[in-house]
């Protein structure tokens, strides 16, 4: 059953992609049994390297792919079951998505007004003037102006395009936004604009955000809680500060140690930790499970590892 604490709850989600038939059949476990919950008005960051399944998780929740197994609840209603028109409407009304690539995510043959206004049109708004008014209002909110409405996407810079993508997602007034690497394709000076904009909109509209990214600094800055993914598994979930101060899973530690910091003093002495699953875990006799090590801090570990992690937290605090 879904917990009332969470707006979005994912239980044992699996997404396998199969290719080939018979002997050549190859199953890729893009997402392999992950569970987490996102509280209302919270930002949950999902971080991991390319191919770890974080994007697939987001796309499965919004049903761009059908899950292989597991259940997803949104606001108490299951959204992972068989697709019906009613469910599709429920999903699209409540969850919107922001995509990574500012060039790819806008249709090159449509004007900005058509792109941003499409969600309104789909929801049955027919009055052209009203659509126009709301599109312009939204454009102003994301720092663009009326003149931009008639232009085509390729005339805009990356940051502007990403803001248009945000306008398209927010204009339909969703309760939740899944932001899939919204800043990683942008220039450094532009990333801050987009992050600030997302922060403002979140405050103003009380949005809940599932923030997917590979850049731990950005995720840490933007999110209340963070889930770390490695090869389809969620290995650690914690509040940002806890994760940063007490990284327990060896992969989280490796990830944290690898982030280059804009500080020449520390960079020159930085020690990197490697993560080698076979060396760092002994799962020959015990299987790892997700355990709450301290309040709101979950780690994927075996019972013996759990003892070790508990000990480490006790030392640190």
């Amino acid at each position, binding site marked *: 059953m879904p917990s009332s604490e969470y707006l979005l709850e994912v239980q044992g989600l699996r997404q396998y992609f199969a290719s080939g038939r018979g002997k050549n059949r190859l199953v890729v476990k893009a997402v392999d049994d992950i569970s987490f919950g996102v509280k209302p008005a919270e930002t949950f960051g999902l971080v991991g*390297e*390319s191919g770890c399944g974080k994007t697939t998780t987001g796309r499965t929740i919004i049903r761009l792919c059908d899950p292989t197994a597991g259940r997803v609840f949104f606001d108490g209603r299951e959204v992972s079951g068989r697709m019906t028109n009613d469910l599709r409407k429920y999903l699209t009304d409540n969850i919107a998505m922001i995509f990574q690539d500012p060039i790819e995510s806008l249709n090159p043959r449509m004007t900005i007004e058509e792109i941003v206004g499409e969600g309104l049109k789909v929801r049955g708004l027919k009055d052209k003037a009203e659509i126009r008014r709301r599109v312009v209002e939204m454009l102003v909110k994301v720092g663009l102006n009326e003149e931009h409405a008639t232009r085509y996407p390729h005339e805009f*810079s*990356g*940051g*502007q395009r990403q803001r248009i993508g945000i306008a398209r997602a927010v204009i339909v007034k969703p309760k939740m936004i899944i932001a899939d690497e919204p800043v990683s394709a942008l*220039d*450094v*000076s*532009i*990333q*801050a*604009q987009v*992050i*600030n904009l997302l*922060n403002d909109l979140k405050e103003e509209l009380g949005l809940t955000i599932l923030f997917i990214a*590979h*850049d*731990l*600094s*950005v995720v*840490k*800055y*933007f999110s209340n809680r963070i889930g770390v993914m490695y090869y389809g598994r969620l290995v650690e979930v914690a509040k940002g500060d806890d994760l*940063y101060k007490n*990284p327990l899973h060896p992969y989280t*530690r*490796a*990830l*944290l*140690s*690898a*982030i*280059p*910091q*804009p*500080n*020449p*003093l*520390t*960079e*020159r002495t*930085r*020690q*990197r*930790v*490697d*993560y080698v699953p076979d060396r760092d875990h002994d799962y020959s006799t015990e299987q790892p499970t997700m355990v709450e090590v301290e309040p709101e801090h979950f780690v994927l570990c075996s019972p013996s590892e759990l003892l070790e992690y508990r000990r480490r937290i006790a030392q640190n605090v």
Partner: protein
Amino acid sequence: MQDRRHVHETRQDDTILRVRDLKVSFRSYGGLVQAVRGISFDLKRGETVAVVGESGSGKSVSIKTIMGILPSNAIIESGEIMYDGKDLTKVSEDDFHEIRGKRIGLIFQDPLSALNPIMKIGKQITEALVLAQKMNPKEARGQALELMNAVGISDAERRFDQYPFQFSGGMRQRIVIAIALAGDPEILICDEPTTALDVTVQARILELINSIKKSRNLSVIFITHDLGVVANMADRVNVMYAGKIVETGTSEEIFFDPAHPYTWALLSSMPDLETKERLLAIPGTPPNMIFPPKGDAFAPRNKNALKIDLEMEPPFFKLSETHYAATWLLHPKAPKVELPEVLKARIARMKGGGELHA
């Protein structure tokens, strides 16, 4: 401010590559795109110079000019690139083969597109060796295996006969580095070599480049937009904006004592692991280089712009022997503008050693 003695000093010591007043434009039907608008810098033997800037700042174009691989619609309008007594802007394509890949190696951003997908990687490395060092194929094979070991490809014998698609992104980048090293170059140019890679892989590749640089006494030009990577790699840093170098200095000077408002903005616009406060975003977008703005190109996005910024291009003002910045804020008559609070706090934190995780 200007210092002419500096020129003589750099000539005497080990300057291996000297770029002076380089201007490169591109023809497009919208007009002439002024990609690089007069940059000058030196590369000394055994040092790493980072060129930092956003896309469109001209950093990639400048190294393409050095490598002689500009597209056909590019025009070198002026300037010189002195290497080994030759001006690379005037070297013909035929003679460039003697330099490119042999004396100057290049590592691209995307390792997959830099490798031939249907050629075994061993063959690709040996081919580079045969071409660059006129080795016979047998010698080349031994040398190639050695190179593969040097760039950290374990089990080189077996992997010698594999194809690029059988390698992960990080491994492919190692192969690209091996190929770049095949000619035994003295300059290595890295064009965002880790942007396409994951953080943990990136860290390993950076370590590799650093160790190769030390063991082979290479001089490295490192193009990137990631300040974290710059801090890790660079001895000196050139910050580029809108086709110009706006600030140049050692790593410490750039990170702890930045003088140009654009550098401030770059440093304070990205969160680090300890940032809590609102980010200081740079408003607006980089200028369209068909119509570069008059005066200081950054002025329209600068909260502390002076009237003269909109009229006249600032010259370089000298802050130390190694540290120059092109901003009117350094003029004696300019009002004192404090560093943004966010940045001040961050620099203090950085100097405090930043209790970083290890």
